[in-house]
């Protein structure tokens, strides 16, 4: 089994694979975004159309789930970048896995529960912030006791389950995709010499294609659920 390359810095543990993957993908996103938005005109050109389509797509996710127009404006950028970031990180492991010895250096950062939990935490903290901004601290806590007061503990537990389901769904999907891809490539292909290797190639191709699809769906689901949680916090039940 491959192992994460973990080092300790200022008392905190860091995993190099996640850092490299996320930084790489952030750079790619930035490059793509700048490339697509080099010439922004009133009559859109082709590149601008792509960017506007993406922006429309994430904006629609926001508008469908958040009814507060003030929050919509702030969340538009967040949803856009979050969607791109998670999508790119989901795809990274499909075409690039770099292993040195026993240690993983490049793989999908989202195939790691710590990564997905980080983003889930970010989203939930954001939803708390929006809720408190909208209703004030007292009103925010009172919303947990809605519609009836004995639901308070259940609503509290829901926050935890939201966090877990949001993060583990993404992790599970991407991790499973990578495991199966690794299995096909490392175990199935060399098992019976050249015949299985030939047979494994289309299988790997199909699974890769399917994983691209899964990665897109999961990025969409992650952003959608994030917006659902934020939307729930800014609307009175």
């Amino acid at each position, binding site marked *: 089994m491959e*192992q*994460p*390359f*973990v*080092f*300790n*810095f*200022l*008392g*905190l*543990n*860091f*995993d190099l694979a*996640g*850092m490299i993957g*996320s*930084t790489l993908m*952030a750079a790619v*996103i*930035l490059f793509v*975004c*700048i490339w*697509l*938005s080099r010439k*922004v*005109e*009133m009559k*859109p050109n082709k590149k*601008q159309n792509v*960017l*506007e389509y993406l*922006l429309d797509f994430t904006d629609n996710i926001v508008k469908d789930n958040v009814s507060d127009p003030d929050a919509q404006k702030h969340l*538009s*950028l*967040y949803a*856009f*970048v*979050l969607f*791109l*970031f998670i999508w790119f990180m989901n795809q990274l492991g499909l075409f690039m896995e770099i292993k040195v010895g026993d*240690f993983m250096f490049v793989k999908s*950062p989202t195939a790691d529960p*710590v*990564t997905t*939990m*980080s*983003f889930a*935490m*970010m989203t939930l903290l954001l939803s708390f912030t929006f809720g408190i901004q909208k209703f004030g601290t007292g009103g925010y806590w009172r919303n947990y006791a809605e519609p009836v007061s004995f639901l308070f503990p259940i609503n509290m537990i829901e926050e935890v389950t939201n966090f877990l389901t949001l993060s583990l769904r993404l992790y599970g999907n991407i991790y499973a995709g990578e495991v199966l891809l690794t299995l096909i490539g490392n175990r199935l292909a060399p098992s019976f010499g050249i015949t299985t290797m030939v047979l494994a190639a289309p299988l790997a191709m199909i699974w890769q294609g399917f994983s691209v699809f899964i990665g897109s769906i999961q990025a969409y689901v992650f952003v959608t659920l994030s917006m659902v949680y934020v939307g729930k916090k800014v609307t009175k039940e």
Partner: protein
Amino acid sequence: MTFQTLFAASANHIYIGNTLWYLIVFVILLLLVKHYAWGPVSDMMEKRRQKVINDLDVAADNRKKAEVLANEREAALKNSRQEATQIISEAKVSAQKTSSQIVADANKNATSIHEKAKADAAQAKADALDEARSQVADLSVAIAEKVIAKNLSATDQKDLVDQFIKGLNK
């Protein structure tokens, strides 16, 4: 600087530092994307939205204006048609009047001319008769004179005078 590399023999490390790293990377990415792509593009989309709204408003306004103009034109056309009809009918009426007047005048004239001609003819007849009568008298006198001068003998003259005197006596 306490930089230690831990080659993880057991994978039991929870690398909480990654969370921090993701947060930092994400925030930096957020700001850069906002500055380079999201900001200008969404600005432009908003501007385009405003422009479309504006254009639609202007188009609606123009259409309304055109409608008003067309209505006005139609009303004016109708009005002028009505006026023309009125003018024609007026002209017809006045022409009728004039023509009947002319006919009446002509009739009257003709009648008066006829009357006058009749009167003149009567007058001329009377004059001619008078003249003829006086001429006949003169002629008869002259003839009588001539007859008398030629054939009148003394006895005849005496008879005549007698007759005359007899006549006077009667």
